[in-house]
């Protein structure tokens, strides 16, 4: 068979120039492995919640409330789901999810575990979503209070083996639960991120009653199942009707102008919808594009190495082309031969690449927070992607050599007139410039992301975030009434320096409220960011008072009549000359009256209460010592674990029947930049890989360059050229290429970076230093590669080279 003949020849050619073959095939393999990993990442992101068989009929319903301030939440109040099912025949089912909090204390027999991602949910869970219940009855597993469905992994962890878990008891906080089912581990890409589900009906009936009567308490994510695909639905009327029929009468009961309305978010595409507050972490479509481009870049850089190898071999193969043509091979046959060869090498590289993927997948999963399996490689999408990569790379790398080689004229080649390598000099230079430009782009990109991240981490936020623990306070009147004594108990320990209760804290819960403010002797309604806090808030966060005074527990009227604003508020309201004493009202009612009417008593320096993605906004701080959603504890330095165990023991006395949920403020602040951090890490690693591949190419290319000009250099050497002269000769060439690559890469980098930085309100200036560093880095690698070859050349006997010619 002719195929075998082709195979033999190409294999022997590869063996003949082992080093170069190895460089380009390994480079290609690494490039392909990178492309595959990136494709994995992208497809995993795109697959979020796509495994549910009823996905087309499922939508999340979200509630926007405008209740003295607007909140566009990813949540709804508790009764929304059941009410929709009851009122509208098109809605056939609902499932609600409520987080049980951050880290929970789980007691199994005598063992204590700390676990997170426990979700309260309805018994309809398994009817609507396709989470596979491995043991238990899907209809009954969550029907009834105090039932828990554990993931396989958790069941194993708690009870040694999965089979032993069913029917066993465990404590979550102080509540006892019975294991009523085992669900598959939450490894599939889903925004419903769980380790275990507990029955929603476990919530005490008094609380349930309270929640069910309140359409403004946003407590759960609610998914609705419709009897036809969501995209065919025209549900606007029903949503409007709901507001009209249910919300309006509810609002009337407390006589304000507040309102709430609803929106459907189809499950398809929900993962990339970042428009709602209080949402689970979502994907970022822009970053997916960036990653896709990155994957393509790496593939192109690796492919260019391979094209260069093919071109360098083409002279050697000219004779073969001549002979084959003389023996009757047509150009098409030769093109087929070279493309086929190429395909095989690319295929080989893909196999090696797949091996690399297998090796790297664990670390990649850790890096990206995914749980991708190697066997996912054989899914239809990935097989299509692989075919795409294979075809693209084969054509990119093989088409040009195939066309050029098959065009060699046998009548010339066979008389020993070989095409000069210079023929490809131009193309080679172009390829090299492309490679260098990509590398420069990647280095600049990585450095820029790094600087921005560093800036975000190091930026003075205007408050102290270290050693502050934020504790969630359960919304339970039994607990509420003892807040003050809990605070006193905590303060009695020297490990805890200070405690403040507040409704919000930077990075969390800062809401918006409708105020009426004094402007030019008139009162104007305006929606403004606010938080409510007690008098210790300023001290714990280290906020700086610029004018006036802080709240005082000694002044009774402060609760309703004192406000503290930030600098931006003063500026924005036109009060910068004299902010103190300006009038503010809130709690606006249907009759136009305000419940609270007071004056600005203090002005604090601006501090970043929301992430640096957002600009500084006006903020009003209300004094509310008795209504805290959060307790923030300032710990004494170096005694974190002691302080935490004190907190736990105090918590038992204070609210033992509720789980203790706490986070560190600095971690919370940092978590605002999680998606950028993932971007940086993934980008950084792949940039490194692409730079390595490009360096290998550079090394090979400088070796070709020297080889090509071997005769010229030997003559020059005989005429007295020193190694320095030779280095300068090649160096000038390379410098020109690097400069050209820089010229191409820099504007593109500058443009992309400025685009990316637009995501942040607080950004670094264009990091020109990174541009210089990138150029210098690339120049250094090029010079090293070149020097290596020149050094080798300088130690050769020129006479021997000329004799060989």
């Amino acid at each position, binding site marked *: 068979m002719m195929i075998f003949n082709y195979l033999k020849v190409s294999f022997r050619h590869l063996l003949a120039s082992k080093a170069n073959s190895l460089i380009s095939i390994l480079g290609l393999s690494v490039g392909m492995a990178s492309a595959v990993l990136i494709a994995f990442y992208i497809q995993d992101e795109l697959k979020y919640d796509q495994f549910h068989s009823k996905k087309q009929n499922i939508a999340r319903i979200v509630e926007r409330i405008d209740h003295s301030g607007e909140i566009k939440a990813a949540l709804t109040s508790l009764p929304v789901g059941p009410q929709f099912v009851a009122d509208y025949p098109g809605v056939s089912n609902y499932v609600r999810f409520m987080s049980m909090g951050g880290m929970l204390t789980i007691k199994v027999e005598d063992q204590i575990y700390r676990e997170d991602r426990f979700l309260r949910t309805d018994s309809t869970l398994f009817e609507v979503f396709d989470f596979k219940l491995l043991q238990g009855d899907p209809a009954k597993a969550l029907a009834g209070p105090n039932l828990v469905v554990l993931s396989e992994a958790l069941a194993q962890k708690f009870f040694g083996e999965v089979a032993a878990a069913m029917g066993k008891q465990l404590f979550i906080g102080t509540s006892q639960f019975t294991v009523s089912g085992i669900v598959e581990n939450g490894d599939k890409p889903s925004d419903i991120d769980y380790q275990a589900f507990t029955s929603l009906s476990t919530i005490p009936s008094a609380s349930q009653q309270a929640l069910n009567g309140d359409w403004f308490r946003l407590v759960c994510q609610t998914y609705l199942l419709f009897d036809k695909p969501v995209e065919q639905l025209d549900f606007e009327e029903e949503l409007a009707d709901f507001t009209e029929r249910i919300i309006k009468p509810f609002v009337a009961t407390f006589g304000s102008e507040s309102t709430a309305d609803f929106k459907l978010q189809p499950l398809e595409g929900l993962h990339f919808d970042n428009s709602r507050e209080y949402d689970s972490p979502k994907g970022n479509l822009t970053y997916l594009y960036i990653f896709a481009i990155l994957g393509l870049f790496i593939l192109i850089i690796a492919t260019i190495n391979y094209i260069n190898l093919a071109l360098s071999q083409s002279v050697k193969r000219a004779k073969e082309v001549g002979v084959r043509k003389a*023996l*009757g091979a047509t150009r098409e046959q030769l093109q087929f031969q070279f493309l086929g060869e190429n395909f095989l090498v690319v295929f080989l590289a893909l196999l090696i690449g797949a091996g690399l993927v297998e090796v790297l997948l664990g670390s990649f999963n850790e890096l990206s927070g995914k749980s991708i399996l190697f066997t996912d490689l054989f899914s239809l999408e990935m097989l299509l992607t692989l075919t795409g990569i294979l075809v693209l790379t084969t054509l990119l790398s093989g088409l040009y050599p195939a066309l050029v080689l098959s065009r060699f004229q046998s009548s010339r080649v066979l*008389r020993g007139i070989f095409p000069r390598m210079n023929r490809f000099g131009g193309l080679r230079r172009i390829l090299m410039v492309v490679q260098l430009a990509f590398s420069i782009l990647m280095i600049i990109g990585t450095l820029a992301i790094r600087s921005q991240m560093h800036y975000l981490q190091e930026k003075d936020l205007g408050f102290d975030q270290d050693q502050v623990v934020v504790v969630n306070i359960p919304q339970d009147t039994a607990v509420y009434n003892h807040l003050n004594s809990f605070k006193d108990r905590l303060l009695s320990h020297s490990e805890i320096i200070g405690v403040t209760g507040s409704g919000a804290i930077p990075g969390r819960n800062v809401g918006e409220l409708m105020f009426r403010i004094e402007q030019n002797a008139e009162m104007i309604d305006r929606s403004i960011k606010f938080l409510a806090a007690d008098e210790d808030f300023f001290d714990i966060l280290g906020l700086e008072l610029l004018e006036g005074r802080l709240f005082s527990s000694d002044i009774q009227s402060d609760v309703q009549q004192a406000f503290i604003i930030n600098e931006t508020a003063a500026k924005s309201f036109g009060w910068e000359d004299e902010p103190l004493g300006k009038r503010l009202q809130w709690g606006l009612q249907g009759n136009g009256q305000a419940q609270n009417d007071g004056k600005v008593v203090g002005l604090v320096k601006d501090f970043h209460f929301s992430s640096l993605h957002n600009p500084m906004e006006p903020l009003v701080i209300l004094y509310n010592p008795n209504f805290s959603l959060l307790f923030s504890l300032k710990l004494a330095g170096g005694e974190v674990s002691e302080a935490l165990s004190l907190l736990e023991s105090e918590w038992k006395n204070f609210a033992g029947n509720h789980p203790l949920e706490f986070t560190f403020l600095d971690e919370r602040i940092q978590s605002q930049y999680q998606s950028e951090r993932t971007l940086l890490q993934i980008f950084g690693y792949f940039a490194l890989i692409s730079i390595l591949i490009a360096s290998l190419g550079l090394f090979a290319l400088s070796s070709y360059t020297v080889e090509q000009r071997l005769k010229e250099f030997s003559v020059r050497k005989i005429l007295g050229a020193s190694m320095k002269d030779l280095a300068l000769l090649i160096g000038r060439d390379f410098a020109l290429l690097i400069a050209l690559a820089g010229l191409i890469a820099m504007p593109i980098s500058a443009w992309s970076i400025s685009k990316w930085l637009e995501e942040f309100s607080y950004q670094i200036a264009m990091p020109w230093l990174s541009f210089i560093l990138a150029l210098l880095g690339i120049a250094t690698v090029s010079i090293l590669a070149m020097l290596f070859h020149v050094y080798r050349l300088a130690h050769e006997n020129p006479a021997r080279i000329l004799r060989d010619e």
Partner: protein
Amino acid sequence: MSELILKTVGLEMRYRTETMETLALNKVDLEVKKGEFISIMGPSGCGKSTLLNILGMLDKPSAGAYFFEGEDIAHLKEKLRAEIRKARVGFVFQSFNLIDELSVFENVELPLLYQGIAASKRKELVQKILERMGIDHRATHYPQQLSGGQQQRVAVARATVSEPAVIFADEPTGNLDSVHGDEVMNLLSELNRTGTTIVMVTHSMHDAAYSQRSIRLFDGKVIGEVENRIEEAQS
């Protein structure tokens, strides 16, 4: 008179560069009979190789007609010329032009592969020709492992394995010493005796003497023709 296998009428070949045009062949009229052994002689640059390349269908003439086995193929498409080439023509070159990455056996087998001949038949044909050329013991060796004479014998074997009507030989002894050169010339004579037409380019009078007729070329023109007596050369 036996029939003609090759015939050219007014064959011309021009090479153009940016500044000048060279006329490499100038109205060459040539006839070769079936079973003939002719040599084309002349000084370097007279157009010998150009003529051979056109006759061997590796190049197209700029003008004129070229009849191969009665059909004018001067302006046929490359694909059709490749078809005729692989079925009817064999080549022997001065620089052997064996493919370094293929063994002796594989090199000789190559034309048969392009003709789509079955593996068992190929094996038989290659074996036979290698024996005939006296290099069957070298079948698994690679070109670099052979002497020049041996390499050229492999090349002759490759040119003849598919039993072509014509063999074109371009300075077949140019890279060989006289002993190996004579070996190759004897092989070609032997092939000619069994009916193969041979067209050989050479500037060796000694080699030319193996042919029945020598055509002299000068500055792209045929300037004369000499009949050789084979017996003389072999004595």
